[in-house]
């Protein structure tokens, strides 16, 4: 981790000095070492502020869409984050040539709230970025025989009524702070459907049915795009296991459409694509 931090500082400094990048997105110190914050650097001298430790879990791809088009951005990404960058490129939100991707192969990240390790139960099992220009550490061996979807078995086995009970109990705790939306690298809509007044898609105050409306629609909006970084669940102040639902939707998309989100820059996201031979068995 120390090695990565050192390399990240060096690269950030070099990129800003040579003006290869106008902005570097990395991790900085929060109120203490265990609570890092997103850091946006514009001056080479700021590079000293970069930190990297096992609590740097947030997805810096979240901030890529906040800059004017054409800004040269260097972004530090971990395994899942690089898939988010790939999806943003696929969707035309950022251009590949405007990005310098600093890949960080890393395992053993920890949730700063609970201190527990982040593993394949809450995020994808991959440890190496899928897309990078500069690698900040040696590639790690990918874990074998670990599926990100194993954790779903228990909920899938429930009866519909039990599942309804489970989710309505979870979502009834939602306070509609929209931290999930804010933490998500792919929730970049300028006006979220839930904030629209005309048409009014959903009630804005928290209630059982409006919470469900918001979350189900958000799960749909991330279908075939969610890259399973788990940022939404870690951001949630009420500890709602949003990752479970996102994993389920990703799993179904992978099974039905034969493509995982954000693995290849040239692929089309599955929900803006079709195949003539797609099945409609479950619909009829």
């Amino acid at each position: 981790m120390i090695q990565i931090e050192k390399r990240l500082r060096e690269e950030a400094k070099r990129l800003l000095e040579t003006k290869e990048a106008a902005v570097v997105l990395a991790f900085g110190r929060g109120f203490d070492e265990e609570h890092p914050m997103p850091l946006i650097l514009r001056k080479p001298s700021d590079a000293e502020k970069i930190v990297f430790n096992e609590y740097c879990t947030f997805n810096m791809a979240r901030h890529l869409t906040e800059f004017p088009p054409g800004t040269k951005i260097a972004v530090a990404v971990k395994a899942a984050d690089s898939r988010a960058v790939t999806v943003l490129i696929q969707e035309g939100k950022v251009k590949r040539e405007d990005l310098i991707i600093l890949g960080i192969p890393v395992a053993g990240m920890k949730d700063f709230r609970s201190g527990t390790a982040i593993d394949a139960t809450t995020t994808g099992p991959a440890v190496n970025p899928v897309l990078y220009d500069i690698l900040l550490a040696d590639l790690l061996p990918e874990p074998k025989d670990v599926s990100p979807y194993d954790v779903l078995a228990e909920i899938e086995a429930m009866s519909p009524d039990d599942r309804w009970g489970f989710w309505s109990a979870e979502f009834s705790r939602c306070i509609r702070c929209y931290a999930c939306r804010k933490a998500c690298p792919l929730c970049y809509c300028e006006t979220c459907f839930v904030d629209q007044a005309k048409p009014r898609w959903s009630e804005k105050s928290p209630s059982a049915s409006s919470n469900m409306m918001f979350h189900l629609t958000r799960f749909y909006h991330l279908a075939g795009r969610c890259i399973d970084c788990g940022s939404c669940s870690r951001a949630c102040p009420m500890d709602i296991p949003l990752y479970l639902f996102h994993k389920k939707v990703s799993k179904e998309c992978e099974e039905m459409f034969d493509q995982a989100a954000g693995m290849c820059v040239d692929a089309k996201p599955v929900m803006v694509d079709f195949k003539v031979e797609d099945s409609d068995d479950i619909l009829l």
Partner: protein
Amino acid sequence: MSFDPKILGIACNWCTYTGADLAGTTRLHYPHNVRVARVMCSSRINPAFIFRAFVLGADGVLVGGCHPGDCHYSTGNLYARRRLAVTKKILEFAGLEPERFRVAWISASEGNIFAETVREFTEQVRNLGPQTKLAAQKRMLA
């Protein structure tokens, strides 16, 4: 009195809606439970329409479109097919009975199939009983 379900029908202008029209002009009898809304193409359907319908108290949602390959806009229903499949999976995983949501490909000449589908689906939803899971406690909009 037995339960009378409220079902939202969303039909594409070119096939299913015309098929429904044909069912009417040929004097076919079918239950009144499906209220049909017309859209220009099944790919016009935002899945939020379907979630919203359930929140507002619909007991079932029936979507109708052209047969895959026959879309008036060439490929609209092929996109819709993916979207609706994911929508169904989401409703299912949330715990709503998947039988409350159904898609039917009905062409403009298939008035009898439209009537038959509505009959079947209405019975299916009637057997499930009122939809109380997603529906808001107080119906916000009548």
